[in-house]
């Protein structure tokens, strides 16, 4: 009479869901804070793996890999010259609006990337150098700047999109360009025919548009944590943001290379808004012809790009 068989909970132990092996457990809390109803989320561990290991590996590999590749390429190919030399005549290429849009985006991007990388790599790289306290200031400033420059970046992105989308729609010629890789490996300086933007640039454009918007969307959601999703969603957003950022950083490194030391005459387009006639003929023959035609129709006056009007 004294001792009973083990008396189990109403249901047996096996029927108490809590005691069943399960990965994630979500219950209820009386405080009005949904995210606190997660009891255990073991994927925190995977996320931590990603954040403190894979993100660094991916971002580092992509960025450094791209730099290494470009260095090799530079050693092999050097600056791609204008094969006919500079003509001295200028063809207008990007108006004030184009350049405003580009540089707004570009500068913001660079700041975002640098501040982002500071957050990503500061702990292993900067803390040993400047100490915890100084790094916290740096990191805090970085997040602040990162958040702040998200705004011009997004605006620039929209402008770029509006300004250049029409010239970046894919066309047949892009296939040829891609097949020959834009003739970059052709020392003779033969470049396939291209319109205002060649297929490579189009790729950059779309990478920037899609990547940029993806970063903007994921970034804004990271700034407003838990506004639309729970903890799992936040982790995914962060992973996406980090991976896309890493990819874009690599792509943009290449872009910057081409736009500067990679190719003679290219920078002028964004720097001054005009390009050397020979550069135009070589890289964007079809566009050049269109420009010439338009110029004629326009009494010989220099002609700005449509979008700049």
């Amino acid at each position, binding site marked *: 009479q004294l001792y*009973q068989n083990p008396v189990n909970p109403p249901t047996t132990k096996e029927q108490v869901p809590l005691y069943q092996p399960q990965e994630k457990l979500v219950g209820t809390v009386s405080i*009005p804070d949904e995210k606190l109803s997660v009891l255990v989320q073991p994927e925190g561990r995977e996320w931590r793996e990603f954040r403190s290991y894979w993100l660094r590996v991916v971002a580092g590999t992509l960025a450094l890999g791209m730099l290494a590749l470009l260095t090799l390429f530079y050693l092999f190919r050097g600056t791609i010259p204008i094969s006919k030399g500079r003509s001295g005549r200028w063809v207008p290429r990007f108006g004030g609006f184009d350049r405003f849009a580009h540089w707004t985006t570009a500068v913001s991007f660079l700041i975002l990337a640098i501040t982002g990388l500071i957050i990503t790599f500061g702990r292993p790289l900067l803390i040993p150098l400047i100490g915890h306290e100084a790094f916290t200031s740096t990191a805090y400033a970085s997040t*602040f700047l990162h958040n702040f420059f998200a705004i011009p970046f997004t605006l620039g992105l929209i402008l770029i999109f509006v300004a250049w989308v029409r010239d970046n729609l894919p066309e047949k010629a892009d296939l040829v360009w891609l097949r020959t890789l834009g003739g970059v490996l052709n020392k003779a300086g033969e470049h396939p025919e291209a319109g205002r933007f060649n297929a490579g640039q189009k790729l950059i454009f779309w990478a920037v548009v899609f990547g940029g918007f993806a970063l903007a969307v994921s970034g804004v959601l990271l700034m407003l944590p838990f506004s639309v999703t729970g903890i799992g969603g936040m982790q995914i957003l962060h992973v996406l943001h980090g991976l896309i950022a890493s990819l874009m950083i690599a792509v943009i490194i290449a872009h910057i290379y081409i736009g500067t030391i990679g190719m003679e005459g290219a920078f002028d387009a964004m720097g001054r808004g005009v390009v050397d006639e020979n550069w135009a003929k070589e890289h964007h023959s079809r566009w050049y012809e269109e420009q010439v035609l338009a110029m004629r129709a326009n009494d010989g006056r220099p002609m700005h790009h449509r979008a700049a009007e």
Partner: protein
Amino acid sequence: MLVKRSTGKPARGSLARSLASGLAAGLGATVDRRGFLKTSGLAAGGMAALSALPATMIRKAEAGPMVPNVEVVTRKNVCTHCSVGCTVIAEVQNGVWTGQEPGWESPISQGAHCAKGASVRELTKGERRLKYPLKLVDGQWQRISWDQAVEEIGNQLLEIRQQSGPDAVFWLGSAKFTNEASYLFRKLAAFWGTNNVDHQARICHSTTVAGVANTWGYGAMTNSYNDIQNAKALLFIGGNPAEAHPVSMPHALRGKERNRAPYIVIDPRFTRTAAHATEYVRIRPGTDIPMTWGILWHIFENGWEDKEYIRQRVYGMDEVRAEVKKWDPATVERVTGVPGEQVKRVAELISKNRPSTVIWCMGITQKTTGTANVRALSILQLALGNIGVAGGGANIYRGHCNVQGATDMGLDVSTLPSYYGLAEGAWKHFSRVWDVDYDWMKARFASKDLMEAKGIPTTRWFDAVIYKPEDIEQPSPLKAMFVMGHGGNTVTRMPEMLKGLEKLSLLVVADPHPTTFASFQQRRNGTYLLPACTSFETDGSRTCSNRSLQWGEKVVEPIFESKDDYTIMYLMARKFGFADEMFKHITVENTRPVPEDILREINRSCLSTGYTGQSPERLKMHMKHQADFDKITMRASDGPCKGDYYGLPWPSWGHPELRHPGCGVLYDTSKHVMDGGGVFRARFGVERNGVSLLADDSYSQGSEIQDGYPEFTMAMLKKLGWDKDLTPEELNVIQAIGGDKPDEVSWQTDLSMGIIRVALKHGCVPHGNAKARAVAWNLPDPVPVHREPIYSPRPDLVKEYPAIPDRRDFRLPQLARSLQSKIAESDLRQRFPFILTSGRLVEYEGGGEETRSNPWLAELQQSMFAEINPKDAERLGIRNGAMIWVYGPENDAKAKVMAQVTERIGVGTVFMPFHFSGYWQGESLRGNYPPGTDPIVLGEAANSVTTYGYDPVTFMQETKVTLCRVEPA
């Protein structure tokens, strides 16, 4: 640098001690972490601009509770939020309560608290407390001085007394009072000249008190929380201690673990208590008698009852058998909804694992059949021979922190302190104690009849305001109400309460908070709010559920302009002009009566419940030496209290000098009476219809009378020849009391306590040794019978199980059968298809005004809700978290609350917590509170939709079964 916040060695229990020893090893090494920080070159400074701490974590240093290098004084008090009576350890610096520590040494709580107890420190920060006296002038709150308040209130009350008689004032006291304040308030009402004085027990355990006192003598929990650890089976019925008495749960869960005891919960809700059950029985609300008789049916059927026990100690069980016969499994299932198999299993579990304990609370008591419910469960325990046995018992969990004590102190419309009743003898006894002339006392009342007539109870005070004068059996309807420590949202039928409130000419609320009474706009003048302080700002004793008295030390001085209850009562008495008479034997310092003196007066007068051994000195000693008490038996094994039960659970017979240890388990014959043993009380005569009511062959150990015996009187002493044991002084007193009839002086009225002493000396219990009554012939239902609730969800059963006939009591009419049948015959059931029941949340207490003002608690329950089953919700298109209207069947009542869709509640039933107020029919009343005193969380009051229905014995309100309709809002 180590700045010690606590002086002296920290008090801790064994778990903590073992943990702490591990800790010591670890502590030295924490230095390393500082080393680590040094190398990281930390210093605040340049950081300030960028990394400013968010405002929410910044506190002014002086606001933080910890002030280093300031002396810490530790004070011990008792949690004010429920009857478990957990010890609160307060650390006080510079007169401010700055830290709270676990009270490891308390045998009851052993360091534990629930959410409320762990946050009581906030009470003396009191951000939302009433800060000074206020008066309502044309709907505006006006600050006034205490002097002005007492003067104006006093004048108005005296005028009402003059014009309408003393019974026109309703004195509503509190189970939050200390014993001393409860006693004093009862005395105040007596001196004022009325029995219209009541407190929460009416709406809480009045039916328990009536039910069990009528069964075996005393209206109290028989065993203790701790003793549940000895139980071999636990039956919880109509109680949810996991929320309402959380610190009783460690005892219950330990019992479950140690003894692998079956743990059965009978409740319409799958409560948090049920979550730990081994057997959960979902019952239709209001069918506890059928359920109990159903269990007993199996017990009788299988001969599981304790036949010898019944023969020796129970009267009238055969009449019960006859009633139980009607409750075969099929009938039980038809009425309660519980499958026959399960009822049988429950019966078997509690029969085969004895001692088994039955634990009940509001699901049993707050019923139109409350007293009968209580009686049925008592009879069940008698049948199993579980009363008077460690591990068994009727463990009736009381409500407020001192509802047991306040009841014992007679803060009640039907009795003077210590259940002496209202008869002439009782008044004479107390006139002697108070040292006032009986005739003077009588002259305070409107008439001798009214002096001896039960007053108007809390549940019906507003009826006594709004009913036609001829329906109220006193000279005048109520004109004024003086409320000390009672919420305004805790009595049913609030729409009608509002009508009463509007019609009162004077309303005085003396409370730490304005209470719901203050938030209604019905009154624009004639309301006074007096800031009373809490029990942490005064001292005195409180009696927890297991009858232990605990002395609470004042932690801090009353905050703001608040005053303690003693002072407020003194100021009123002085204004009324009878302070000198009333405080004849009580020292008053300035205007504060000294609680120790009040307790001494209680010790001198409350003989019948054995409130005599608990002198202030002994109680204080117990608090100081808590550590010496065993954590299960609650008996001190060492130290100055050696042999005592903790808190001298009453009865502690005779003078304190006798050192009676108190009774851990009531009616326990296995012990000598001086060792805490006892027998059933002989209260109802010695025989009935030729059958003896005294015990047969049963007596407490060591008794010189080895059989039943009646209560002790002088005559009986003489018959036994024991009168020779009385001292001359004792004889003198008896002579003086008895006058020409000294033989009639009984143990209850002998102020010398000589009769008690002599009885004890011979091993006898002064109150006699009788049988418990399975049949209580003086009650409306001598043997409990099932009666459907007034608002029965089963109109088809109403004819078969009707309510009692309409009647009058407590100066008022009581409708029952007529109302019930009218409802059953109408289409009400179709329009109100849900059963509505109500109850508690762990975070809030009572009307909730205190706890909803405490941010640490309020954050955890931010909205009033109603639980509804997913099936019903789906049918009605209600989503979890959506707003709904709950309509009540009377007075177009309605409440707008949030839907909590959960299977916790059965199909067809709706549950609402009753702790909310401050909304009325969808409108917020926040603006009506005096500025700065509105509780943080407001919500609709459950009682705005509860309905008519009263227990015939005590006028207990029906809060647990009514009908309602639910619609999406």
